[in-house]
């Protein structure tokens, strides 16, 4: 299958490519390397800008700073009235609670759909799949009014509690697909032995499903960490800000004055995501490849 791809990517006349030809491979490698550099250049430039002396940030497009200077990090960290430490802590708490909620609630729901028989199962499953397609804007305003009346605005509750009610249908769907692949004989035998549904879920299903639970947990963390819209609506007190809101406020207050601090803090907000990416790349890529998750 190699040759026809070469004809497209390397834009050579198709007839003179021989199977796995060395020049063909070299050309494809060269193009891919060039494309890779173009892809990561902005990111590397931002990291390099964050350790440059302030005067040098915009003077060159080069990635290598003339001297390394971490003072932008110290300056940026102090932030506004509230330091970035606070924003990081808030984001961390919310993200970990969302991960917990998603893993528990979505796995319970998925287990019911994938393994339990009950009247109306297909109906509810169809409804659940239907919710995947509803844009959140439709429920946004009544939800906001609800949480406002509950006195939850300016707390983390509106961002966290829905996750304990399995509001992320993507993860339910992902887990249903995975659970269906686990041999039915296992839980049927356990059921014959008088095992309760709960024990089957807890003792058989969850331990066998660690890969999909981890995938859901990691995506939950990254998406919550990166979420801007939810916190923008529900958090108005700077002490409750997440890292994304903090960064945005920092941008607004310092734009054009402290680029070094801005790039330093931008880099820091990406570090946890990058860290997860580095260590769990395989899980993330398989998660995308098998379910086509949105990002």
């Amino acid at each position, binding site marked *: 299958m190699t040759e026809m791809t070469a004809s497209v990517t390397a834009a050579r006349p198709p007839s003179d490519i021989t199977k796995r030809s060395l020049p063909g491979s070299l050309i494809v490698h060269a193009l891919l390397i060039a494309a890779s550099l173009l892809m*990561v250049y902005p990111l590397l430039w931002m990291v390099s800008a964050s350790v440059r002396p302030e005067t040098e940030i915009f003077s060159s497009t080069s990635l290598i700073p003339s001297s390394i200077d971490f003072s932008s990090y110290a300056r940026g960290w102090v932030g506004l009235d509230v330091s970035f430490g606070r924003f990081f802590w808030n984001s961390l708490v919310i993200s970990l609670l969302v991960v917990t909620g998603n893993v528990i609630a979505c796995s319970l729901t998925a287990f019911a759909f994938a393994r339990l028989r009950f009247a109306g199962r297909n109906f509810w499953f169809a409804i659940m799949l239907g919710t995947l397609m509803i844009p959140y804007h439709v429920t946004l305003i009544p939800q906001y009014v609800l949480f406002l009346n509950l006195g939850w605005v300016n707390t983390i509750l509106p961002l966290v509690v829905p996750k304990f009610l399995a509001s992320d249908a993507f993860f339910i769907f992902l887990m249903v697909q995975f659970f269906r692949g686990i041999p039915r004989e296992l839980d049927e035998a356990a059921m014959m032995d008088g095992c309760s549904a709960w024990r089957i879920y807890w003792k058989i299903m969850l331990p066998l499903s660690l890969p999909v639970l981890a995938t859901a947990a990691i995506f939950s963390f990254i998406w919550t960490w990166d979420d801007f819209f939810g916190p923008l609506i529900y958090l108005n007190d700077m002490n409750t800000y997440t890292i994304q809101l903090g960064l945005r406020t920092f*941008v607004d207050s310092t734009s054009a004055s402290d680029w070094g601090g801005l790039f330093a803090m931008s880099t820091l907000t990406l570090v946890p995501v990058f860290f997860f990416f580095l260590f769990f790349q395989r899980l993330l890529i398989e998660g995308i490849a098998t379910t*086509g998750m949105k990002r």
Partner: protein
Amino acid sequence: MSNAMRTPAGAITVERYQGAVAEGRFRRLWNANAPGYLFLLPWLIGFFGLTLGPALISLYLSFTDFDMLQSPRWVGMANYVRIATADPKFSAAMHVTLTYVVFSVPFKLTFALLVAMALNRGLRGLPIYRAIFYLPSLLGGSVAIAVLWRQLFASDGLVNAALAQIGIEGPSWISHPNYSIYTLVALSVWQFGSPMIIFLAGLRQIPQDMYEAASLDGASKFRQFYKITLPLLTPVIFFNAVVQTIEAFKAFTPAFIISGGTGGPINSTLFYTLYLYQEAFGNFRMGYASALAWILVVIIAIFTAFSFLSSRYWVHYDD
């Protein structure tokens, strides 16, 4: 039945018999269905309390004037009429969003497919390339990337510095209404990694011997691409196109950060969702914003239905 009052305790009467049957049936129903519904309980609460309930309320609110201070005031179709006939910001937002969808999705999918095919040749270093191309997709939703993008395309930004080196004086991309939307398109195209990974998975499914047979028959590579790869990949192309289009309709963060929440210059980056946000949480026109939300739903539904209907003519599923 009429002598039920005279029956001794413990005797079987029709009522008791029916009662026992009903109770047994209930117990059996309970035993058969309770575990399922107990496991579904959190989701059911969420579905009724956070999805269905709010959706119905928002439908109601879309026919009202509601500023959150006073209770909703019924205005009938007035919100929808104003949207359709007398709201220049709505038309601007629609124009911006459609421009974004029409430019970003095809380019993104084309890049994703080209790179996936280049990577699908059994090259060395595949995992590294795949990771590098996927990274922007994963980081893309964050404020930091939007901030970086705003700098890249600023008038004294990196893109213009690079252009200056080859003697071109670039415009001020971000603050020029003709170009600002395309910087956001570029940001979206840069994040082609996740459709690329789905294409890669799809390419793996195509049997190798089809290409071997085709090349024995003397089919050129381009012919193989049009006759084998493309048709067999149509289900994946369809999936990616639908998902990416819906995502594009919902884009928010980059437009908000790059325009500072205004959708400027001159509404050129006023994404639909950004306008909805401004109406709801800037002007507290909650009823009007609800109507905007429902129009978005209808647009997405029409688009999705159209895709599924048209898919009959161009998507090939092997049976």
